[in-house]
């Protein structure tokens, strides 16, 4: 087991879970603006935390794989710059939208729409990046380049569509949108099928028995929501986020021990020696601090009369 990989991947799982729930919220804002309060009650306090988990993942990645920085920068620079612009646009739009008062054409709805569109496009960019890291389509490690035309294979496209369908299909669960509950099983079911198909198309070796874990967990979330007696379990946001993080964490065979279409052995590029010890020491101290702050957050947030003061 590669402990450094596990920490970095755990950071990614938490970041991805938060980002996916934001994407779900973005969809909600775009298609159901009148019922926005359910979405905003969640997104408004949490979007800053998503960004911090993003930084956590990026920094642990830099720390974990120093030798990958040069090739990654060469291969993904245009995609990363596009990502960064969307990232700032997303942060700026929602920060402005939260406290804006209407004057002229610019109002809360336009700014939240800008946030939702930025977040959705950002999600697409992340999915393109992730599918390239999993299957290696479009990536040339030898020449240090990325081609979006070569990336656009059936496997990559199925990966993106499958994940988006899962996000849309599970959005009613997360935000408890009863009016859309009939979409949950069909959309998340098709999402699971497309996702599994995409792994097989990218590289048949990715499909191991272990993949049954994320598949069953995902289907269980949808099923628990549809059955009224158990719907409360999965509409609890903390529980949903925890399960989603576990689902993403259990997808790690897609990139470990080998990533980028089986061309990159993770253990061979992981930091070692004194830097490895420093990585674990800081993770321990930082992790304790994070756990303390999150506990404090949960205590205060659950004590509040009706969610955050918006």
């Amino acid at each position, binding site marked *: 087991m590669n402990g450094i990989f596990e920490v970095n991947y755990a950071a990614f799982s938490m970041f991805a879970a938060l980002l996916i729930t934001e994407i779900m919220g973005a969809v909600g804002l775009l298609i159901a603006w009148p019922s926005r309060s359910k979405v905003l009650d969640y997104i408004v306090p949490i979007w800053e935390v998503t960004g911090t988990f993003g930084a956590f993942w*990026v920094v642990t990645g830099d720390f974990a*794989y120093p030798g990958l920085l040069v090739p990654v920068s*060469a291969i993904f620079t245009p995609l990363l710059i596009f990502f960064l612009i969307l990232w700032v646009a997303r942060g*700026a739009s929602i920060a402005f939208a939260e406290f804006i008062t209407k004057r002229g054409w610019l109002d809360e709805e336009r700014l939240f729409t800008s946030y939702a569109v930025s977040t959705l496009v950002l999600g697409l960019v992340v999915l393109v990046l992730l599918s390239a890291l999993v299957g290696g389509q479009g990536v040339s490690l030898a020449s240090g380049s990325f081609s979006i035309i070569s990336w656009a294979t059936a496997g990559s496209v199925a990966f993106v569509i499958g994940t988006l369908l899962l996000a849309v299909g599970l959005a009613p669960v997360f935000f408890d949108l009863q009016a859309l509950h009939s979409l949950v099983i069909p959309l998340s079911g098709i999402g699971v099928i497309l996702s599994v198909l995409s792994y097989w198309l990218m590289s048949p070796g990715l499909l191991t028995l272990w993949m049954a874990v994320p598949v069953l967990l995902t289907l269980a979330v949808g099923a628990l929501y549809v059955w009224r007696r158990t719907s409360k379990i999965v509409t609890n946001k903390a529980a949903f986020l925890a399960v989603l993080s576990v689902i993403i964490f259990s997808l790690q065979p897609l990139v470990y021990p080998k990533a980028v279409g089986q061309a990159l052995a993770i253990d061979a590029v992981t930091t070692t*020696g004194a830097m490895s010890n420093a990585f674990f020491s800081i993770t321990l101290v930082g992790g304790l601090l994070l756990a303390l702050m*999150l506990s*404090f957050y949960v205590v205060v947030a659950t004590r509040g009369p009706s969610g955050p003061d918006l």
Partner: protein
Amino acid sequence: MAVDPGSMLTFVRFLFAFTIGSHILLVSTSIALVFLIFISEFVSIRKHDQAYDALARRLSKVFVISFGVGTASGIVMAVELVGLFPSFMTLVASTGAMALLYAEVSAFFLEVLALVLYVYYWNTFRRRYSHWAVSVFVVIGTLASAVFITMVNAWMNTPNGFDTSAFIGSGFKTVTGVEPFAAFLTVSTVTQIFHVLVTTLFAGTMVIGAYFAYWFVRSGDAGEKAMYSRALKILGAMAIVTIVLSGISGSEEMGSLLVNQPLKYAALDGNTVPGTNLPDRFFGSVVNGTYVGGISVPGMQALLAKFETGTTTLPGLSQFPANTWPPLLVSTTFNVMTVGGLALGLFLFAFFVSFVRKRRPYESRRLLYTWIPAAVLATLVYQLGWATDEVGRQPWIVYNVMTVAQAANTSDALLVPGIVIVLFYLAVIPVTFYFYSRVFQGVRREAPA
């Protein structure tokens, strides 16, 4: 159209300088904002003063914007560093500088979670002091982030914690003898943190003060004016304390350069040859190895850097190969920074005297009108301070280890995305400041204090 590597190197330098120059505008106002909120709420509780309470509440909304855009911009810079200077970041990732960046993420978590609780759960806390205590964590998180990133810069100025000779000898391929935690305390770390923190707080304080000065003079609403004058009272005190500390820490910083980066010291002070009892020179230039023109103040250099005269031998450019000299323009940027700092000190001295004489300087139209150009000057001085530090280290990105040219990615594929980033920042920074104001004023209309 292919762009030659030399031009791309210039573009890469410009792009990062532009990005970080824009980013620190957000950082300095963020740090000042968090202090202002922290003090305002405390005073509001102590004095049961509604105007201070309204100030803290309204500013906390502005701080959310500042934090949101600032952290997003910080992530842009982190990724940009990998794209623009990959060899440098590979070195960083293999040494203790990476440990500093990782520690910074912990500070971010502290800041963000405390901020979310502070802003969004204000009314959940039954005891006001408990709510105020959360702002202590926001302050600690914000300052810790600034401290860790300054530590990385100190490490770039005085690198340690790895075998530099072996690294250079291997053609930048092998990093050995790594001691990750050594980077937390290089020989320049303490002085640089002291100077960076107080000058950053000072610059932000002046900018926010200018906003309140403008609105105090313009507003006809008595309630609003009362709140602006309270903000200016706090900001005036913060500016006076931080300008004094900026002077002291600046002197400490020069003392540190004298020992740890003597070439940078010589370039800043325009010393062409070493010597004792050298004059402090302003606004001249080095021509054919001689400093010409400008104003000289005899014997001042060692006095300012070491609090003595005639004993310390001060370094000169002639002691170093000319190809390792930084651009000598840094002498001018350093002079503008010093003289600008003195002018700001005089302005704040007048503010202080007025306060001692109970003339209420925070309500004096004359002083408040002067505050606005003073804030522009403070921003210029702050930016020039960073420019002096960074350009003064040239040609090195990591002092005496790796040059910027060796670290940079000069692929012309960066040109178009780079231009897009510049255009983007040109829009984001003014829009952000516009929204600071609009949100601050908008909260008033929605919920009068």
